């Protein structure tokens, strides 16, 4: 359908290509949400979005304190949803009345840092300017006093977005959460505490008194399962060039291409495989980034082959790649270990056992045989690659006798070796035949 030659006869404009890639990469970035995908998320999760909008809106307009948790697996669009809702509120002119405080459990790893960040984002620094906060206690009492100082009628509402909410639960005594929820449950400055987490059991992490203060309002985003309506749509949205794109003609052609790609069997196969694997939109994004990266001045348009190639890149196995780079001696050892694993059914073994297997093989084989220290060195390198791992690191024995385990199943090894065309025939035979008698 999309023949590579038809329109690529035009001389590729590097400027256009650069602009396209730049724009699409903006869409495809893994963190944060671009406008298009935000709208998409709002469309898909419309009821949840409405709930959230009402919740935040009431805090902003009525001064009602709230707390809620937004729970969904990774890559379902929690942050995108919140951003979309905040955007809508901003359009309605309600958001301006409040302050948004964004915290992330990954960044604010303890309550002190979180408190400092809250103070900064609430623009309380002016009040704090005269004071130099050294201690955690001062920071906390300052914030609490600030919250206590405001009332429903007078104070600006604040919206606390706690990304990676589950990490905040691990803070000492859950002091921050207790105080935020407590403020949300008492007549203080109106706040809306919104936690985002992918952990479904995050409520169980809360201490009982913290839990009691939390309103138990949980909003679950369930990834829509339908392939054609949702996944394919997302795919098209992510690759869509907007009307505002400077090169209108190219954008038109590009969007047509994307439409036709969505009907292509090869592309559909790839996407379907991705869909059955995971619904995390980030995996899809990284696949598309791989495709985009293949565009160059010769190929200014996406082809189904690019998708196959990208899929191969995305789904390749790390261990297989490691084994491919090994030397012949190391491969010998890997095969020996595979046999040992088969014989002992995954029980640990030590270097001496591997070396004996290797010796047996090298006696028969035409391959060069090495001294024991050389073999040990090769074995050591395998350990460095973590293809082989010691079982119990606390035990102090001579390294030759240290018990180790191989980090690949025998099946994996056989598969990898069979895919290696350059493997010496001796090794191939040894790998496939089983134990050397």
């Amino acid at each position, binding site marked *: 359908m999309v023949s590579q030659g038809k329109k690529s006869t035009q001389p590729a404009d590097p400027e256009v290509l650069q602009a396209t890639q730049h724009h699409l990469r903006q869409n495809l970035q893994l963190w944060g949400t671009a406008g298009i995908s935000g709208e998409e998320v709002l469309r898909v999760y419309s009821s949840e979005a409405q*709930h959230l909008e*009402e919740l935040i809106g009431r805090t902003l*307009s*009525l*001064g*009602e304190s709230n707390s809620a948790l937004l729970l969904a*697996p990774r890559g379902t669009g929690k942050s995108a949803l919140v951003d979309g809702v905040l955007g809508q509120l901003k359009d309605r002119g309600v958001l301006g*009345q409040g*302050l948004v405080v964004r915290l992330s459990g990954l960044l604010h790893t303890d309550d002190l840092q979180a408190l400092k960040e809250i103070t900064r984002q*609430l*623009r*309380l620094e002016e*009040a704090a300017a005269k004071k130099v906060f050294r201690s955690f206690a001062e920071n*906390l*009492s300052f914030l609490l*006093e600030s*919250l206590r*100082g405001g009332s*429903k*009628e*007078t*104070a*600006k*509402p604040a919206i606390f977005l706690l990304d990676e909410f589950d990490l905040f639960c691990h803070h000492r005594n859950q*002091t921050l959460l*207790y*105080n935020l929820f*407590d403020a949300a*449950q*008492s007549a203080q400055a109106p706040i809306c505490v919104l936690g985002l987490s*992918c*952990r*479904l*059991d995050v409520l169980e992490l809360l201490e*009982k*008194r913290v839990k*009691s*203060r939390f*309103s*138990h*309002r*949980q909003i*679950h985003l*369930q990834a829509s*399962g339908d392939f054609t309506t949702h996944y394919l749509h997302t795919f098209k949205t992510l690759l869509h060039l907007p009307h505002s794109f400077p090169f209108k003609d190219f954008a038109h052609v590009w969007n047509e291409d994307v439409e036709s790609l969505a009907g292509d069997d090869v592309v559909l196969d790839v996407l379907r*495989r991705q869909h*059955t*694997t*995971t*619904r*995390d939109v980030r995996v899809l994004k990284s696949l598309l980034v791989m495709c985009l990266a293949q565009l160059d001045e010769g190929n200014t348009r996406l082809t189904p082959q690019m998708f196959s190639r990208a899929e191969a890149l995305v*789904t*390749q*196995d*790390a261990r297989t790649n490691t084994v491919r780079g090994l030397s012949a001696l190391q491969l010998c050892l890997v095969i020996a270990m595979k046999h040992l694993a088969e014989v002992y059914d*995954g029980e640990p073994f030590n270097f001496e056992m591997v070396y004996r297997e290797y010796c047996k093989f090298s006696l028969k084989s035409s391959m060069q045989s090495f001294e024991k220290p050389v073999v040990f060195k090769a074995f050591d390198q395998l350990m460095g690659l*973590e293809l082989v791992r010691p079982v119990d690191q606390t035990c102090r024995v001579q390294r030759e006798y240290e018990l180790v385990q191989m*980090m690949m*199943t025998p099946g*994996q090894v056989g598969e990898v070796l069979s895919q290696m065309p350059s493997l010496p025939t001796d090794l191939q035979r040894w790998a496939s035949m089983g134990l050397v008698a």
Partner: protein
Amino acid sequence: MTISARIRQKVRGAGSASRFAWRGKPIQPSRKERRFEDKTFYRGFVLGSTGIEEGDCVFIRNSDAVDAEDVNSCDIARVVRCYDNGERKNNNRMQVQWYSRIEDVKPSHLKDIQEGLCPPDASLELVRDERPFPTDVDAETIHSLCCVKEVVCGVSPRSVSLPWECQVPFFVCRFRYAGKRPRLLPIENVQESQQTPAKRFVIKTAFILNYTACLSWIFHCTFPLFRRNTRRSLAVDLNNIETASPKRRMQKTSEEEMGKENLEEKGSKLTNKPETRKESKSPLKAINRAAHNEIALSPSLKRKASETELCNERKKSRLASEYAENSHKEMSRVISDEDATVVERHTSSGRKLKILCYRKLSDGVIDTKGNPTPWSPEPKPTKPLPSPDANSKSSPSKSRCSVAKNSSIKEIGKIRALKDNEIDSILVSDDNESESDMDDDHEDKNCKSSSKNTKVSILKDSTSDTLNNSHKPISKGHKNYSEELEPLPEMITPKKSKKHTVKSKSTVKKRFKCEECALSFSSRAELRDHDEEEHDDFEPISKTPSRAAKKKTSARTPSQAAASPHSRTVPKMPSRTNPVMQPGTPLELARARLHVSAVPDSLPCRENEFQDVYSFVEGKLFDGTGGCMYISGVPGTGKTATVREVVRLLLQCSQDGDLPSFSFLEINALKLTEPHQLWVQVWKGLTGSKVTAEHASSLLEKRFSTPAPRRDPTLLLVDELDMLWTRKQDVMYNLFDWPSRPGSKLVVVAIANTMDLPERIMKNRVSSRLGLTRMTFQPYTHTQLQEIVTSRLLGIPAFDPGAIQLVSRKVAALSGDARRALDICRRATEIAETSKLPPSPSKSPLKRAALVGMLHVDQAIREMFTSPKIAAIRSCSVMEQLILKAVVAEFIRTGVEEAQFGRVMDQFVSLCRFDGMKPPCTSVVMMLVNHLTSQRLILTEHSRNDILMRLRLNISTDDVSYALQSTPEAR
């Protein structure tokens, strides 16, 4: 004086001499006071280098302040009575009349001040505090002297000129702070006090004339009443007599002068004054010149004597003749030499008393120069006194004085033993005299008739004179002074009998009437506690040179600076620009009422607990004692709300005056960053100042272990008590130990969740201190929850009662947490507002009309309580579901609820093949497993273990099978 007190006095004289010492001999207690047999009353004492007498105003260290030595944090009081309570520790007590700074008055009360009066000047003004503070104070808590002048409320405090030569901080007092609900009231009895110095002066004059020779005459003739009191005896204090009058007179003179300056309407009385003074002075002169003999008598005796005398003759000139008449009585023999006078007295029992007196010559100063010597209470006067001749004469006697005094102490007891009869006879005639004094008042404005005034004024006189006398020695060498003063025997002042008290009260009233024109005298004595003891405190007022005034103002500045931290700005959220919208629809209204933060009018279903907590705290506050209470209960059962409600009511009560005022502190341990911050917060709550945790701990330790008279009881609410646990448990230990200390007045209400917390986490010594006053808040039952929700929704027809019942039963079955019930109801209103659920299927029109029905509530409950995991599994991708299946299959294969990743991988590959799918590679599967782990559907070890990583399911295998059976993909 009891024997033990005497021994103690001696011991102290040897040991802690420089610190505290009674001055003079014990004085006769008033009749009321006589039942306290252990108490020994004195006229004054010496603290460090400061001599303090009854009637003086002093700074009293506030042990609750950050810096107890800071004058600005000290309390101010007037000493009313000093006594030794006969106990082993803290035995030096005094009765005081409190004054409060303007800052201590509630701002709302400041508004009570009438229009037209000058606004209170915080830096200068005090109010007389008549709130029921304990007035019994440890005398050693005195910091230094000050000067308080009471004026009528119409006078601007700024216009009140400083007492002459006043070198101590000076304050003006226009109001008293009294009443059941404390209010600022103008001081009514100002005018009376104006007369005090004058009156006192006359009396003093009289008694001075008497003192040498009239002893026996007084005893036999004028104090018959004292016969009744046989146990208490009088003491003769030569030293006090000796020092008594001249100084006082000088001060009075200055007062008069000042009064002239300030107030125009003195009228004719003023003109009389100088004459009076002259009259009274002349006999003194005569005495001093004639004899240089000074014999001390008990002040009461002196007073009585003077009154009698006034009553009989009413002429000042008569005094001299009286002296002459009395002097030839043979009861006592006066041996005088140049510096000191020894009085030998032969008592009826044949004992012989020998009393050494030291001459006091400052009287002569007035005579010769007509220039009163200022008496300055400052221990170290900065300039020499304007009476050099007097001082130079008196100074040589000093060294001998101290030596001789010890011997005179020993005599006191004997003297007292002698005189009971005599005293009684004196008392009989006493009652008649106050009225007769009235006449004197009319004759002479400087006379004050009230006998109670007299007593105090005499005491005052002796103090001032002693100090004056010793000015020189101080400037020479400090140590001399205190040594010398400390063992001075004290006179016994007979206190008024009840009968007498009534009488003098009436006298006071009469005087008010007749002396209205003299209102504007700026000096004043204070009338405190009319019913109890009629003490009119005297206050020295003298003209202050401008230099002194400057000094004072500069001294006052720190107080303003210290006040500033109180006014520091409270951090606040930025304020909003648009006003909040008000809830309009019934649903919005209901939602606002159902919010947990909405404060209900009443707390239904916690009446019993409320009653218990209330009576406990109220009782402790009433008694002024301390105590602990422990409240436990699962979250959301209204523990904190109940206690807060109790406190709210108590605060209201204390505002209404039904309860003593108290300070309330609420501390939530979870709002502290670490347990020791508790002290910081408590200290901050009590004083408003910030200190470090260790410092706060020691300050609080000091505060709660030292009793302070003016301390308000403290009610401390400690929430989330278990968070205060430390390894040493010192925080909890102190918290529960302090309430049991005497005088701490600390009531601790501790709240935590677990009932057996004291037994579980506390050491025995801590839980023992916590005591057994415990209370458990049971989780709410469904009827209670129903009542709570219904009471909040009163008047809003938003809810179907059945729906409320459903919520209540659900929540009661789960946790009994009222917050949950409210949250569910709130969520139900939202659902009712947005969703298009079919109306309630009920037939009843009432129920159909309800905006929130069963279905809404049910959906809200489901949203909150159903586990999201089944839904989460269903929304997983096919591969993820296959992995879950593989894990379950591996569990079934091995029979262990734990599987290695490698094995699961094998299962997974075969499952994929079975489903006809190409199995993904290990890396992808690992990614999927991590994805599931992040949702906590699967629990894994660290993924570093790779294929050896162990997997467990976070949900039951049945749930997985159930979820996967019904998924369309799995079918």
